[in-house]
């Protein structure tokens, strides 16, 4: 009899799928529409109902009014979404690096299982782990929101004034550090060309003895020079362009080189087997890897913050413009 009304209510019901009082809401709307049709048109025939329904609003708009107060994550917790994800991802990422360096899988109960992966698989695994961390934090904040309790979530008291830091960075002269870095790098290149290594048993150039075998010397010294060279090049680029992209690319390339070094490790690299240096070398590589990874994440966060600030600025400008 009221085919259009039923269809209309059905559509609203579709949008209210997650609302517990759905049936009651639909009854209210039905009762109102029938009442209005009868009061204003004297009957509840098709024509009258059509008019009343059209006037009531589209099903989506009607449903939205009931769910606009429903919060997945309360505004006061939204800031924690990226903070907690960042912290969790830093931990996750460190574990991935450790499993990569020590060539082993890891299980940190109850959340993390980190399989041993090569660098190519890592390219896919790292973004996936970020999405996983984001989801995990999202679920946690969802439950905190739904608990309706006045919970104060913990966070470090550290306050970084990004604008001030950037101003400080811009104000500082880059010329002298660059000259020093360049000279240091040139000295390392000279040492490498002269002695075919950058790793010595003792600091005695008269009687220089390489710590590593010739093949390992060449491989690891070239890698070290490449790492430092990229750092120096990125520093030079900043004379012309202060974009965070330079930092991001720098640490990205450094991570790539380190990945290659770890993957193509030379067996028995030490010339002096009585020196048990393998563990120390592993620790050193891990520390370097973590430092570069932190640098990489820092660049990603800074770029993320800048683009968010830019969006907010454009949005504000748009509002101002409209006014």
């Amino acid at each position, binding site marked *: 009899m009221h085919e259009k009304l039923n269809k209309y209510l059905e559509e609203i019901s579709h949008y209210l799928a997650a609302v517990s009082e759905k049936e009651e809401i639909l009854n209210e709307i039905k009762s109102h529409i029938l009442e209005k049709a009868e*009061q204003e048109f004297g009957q509840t025939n098709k024509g009258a109902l059509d008019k009343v329904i059209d006037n009531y609003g589209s099903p989506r708009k009607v449903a939205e009014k009931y769910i606009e107060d429903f919060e997945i994550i309360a505004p006061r917790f939204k800031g924690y979404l990226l903070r907690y994800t960042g912290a969790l991802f830093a931990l996750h990422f460190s574990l991935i690096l450790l499993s990569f360096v020590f060539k082993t899988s890891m299980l940190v109960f109850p959340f993390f299982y980190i399989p041993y992966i090569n660098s190519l698989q890592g390219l896919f695994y790292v973004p996936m782990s970020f999405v996983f961390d984001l989801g995990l934090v999202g679920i946690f904040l969802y439950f905190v929101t739904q608990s309706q309790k006045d919970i104060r979530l913990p966070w470090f008291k550290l306050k970084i004034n990004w604008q001030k830091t950037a101003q400080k960075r811009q104000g500082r002269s880059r010329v002298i550090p660059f000259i020093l870095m360049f000279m240091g790098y040139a000295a390392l290149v000279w040492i490498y060309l002269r002695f075919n290594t950058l790793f010595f048993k003792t600091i005695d150039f008269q009687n220089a003895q390489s710590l590593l075998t010739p093949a390992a010397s060449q491989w690891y010294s070239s890698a070290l020079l490449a790492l430092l060279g990229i750092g120096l090049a990125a520093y030079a680029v900043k004379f012309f362009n202060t974009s965070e992209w330079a930092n991001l690319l720098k640490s990205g390339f450094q991570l790539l080189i380190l990945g290659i070094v770890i993957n193509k490790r030379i067996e028995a690299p030490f010339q002096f087997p009585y020196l048990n240096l393998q563990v120390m070398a592993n620790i050193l590589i891990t520390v370097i890897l973590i430092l570069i990874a932190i640098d990489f994440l820092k660049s990603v966060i800074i770029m993320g913050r800048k683009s968010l600030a830019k969006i907010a600025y454009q949005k504000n400008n748009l509002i101002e413009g409209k*006014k």
Partner: protein
Amino acid sequence: MATDITPFETEMNRGFLQVLVLVLLERKMYGYYIVKKLKKKGYLIEENTLYPLLRRLEKKGLIKSQWDVSEKRPRKFYIISKKGQDVRRQLLSIWQRQNEILIHISKENKNA
């Protein structure tokens, strides 16, 4: 070009509507009657705004509702609760104070 004040009006109406409904529901009424009553007073309220508002007020315990099925057509009647009366009294006093502040500052601006 005149500024479109619709978004500002919508925001302002949110609070006003709550008080208005709490004042109106001193006597029990059903949804359609509330719309009609307000229309007579010169205030147009969209039906699809009124019902979600009534639901929110009921959830907060400020009003109570009951279906009346004795008539030909079932109607849901709403009436203010004890808690609602208390909240209404406080909201009205806030509104009065805000109104006085506005009038006072406007007068000051005129005399300046």
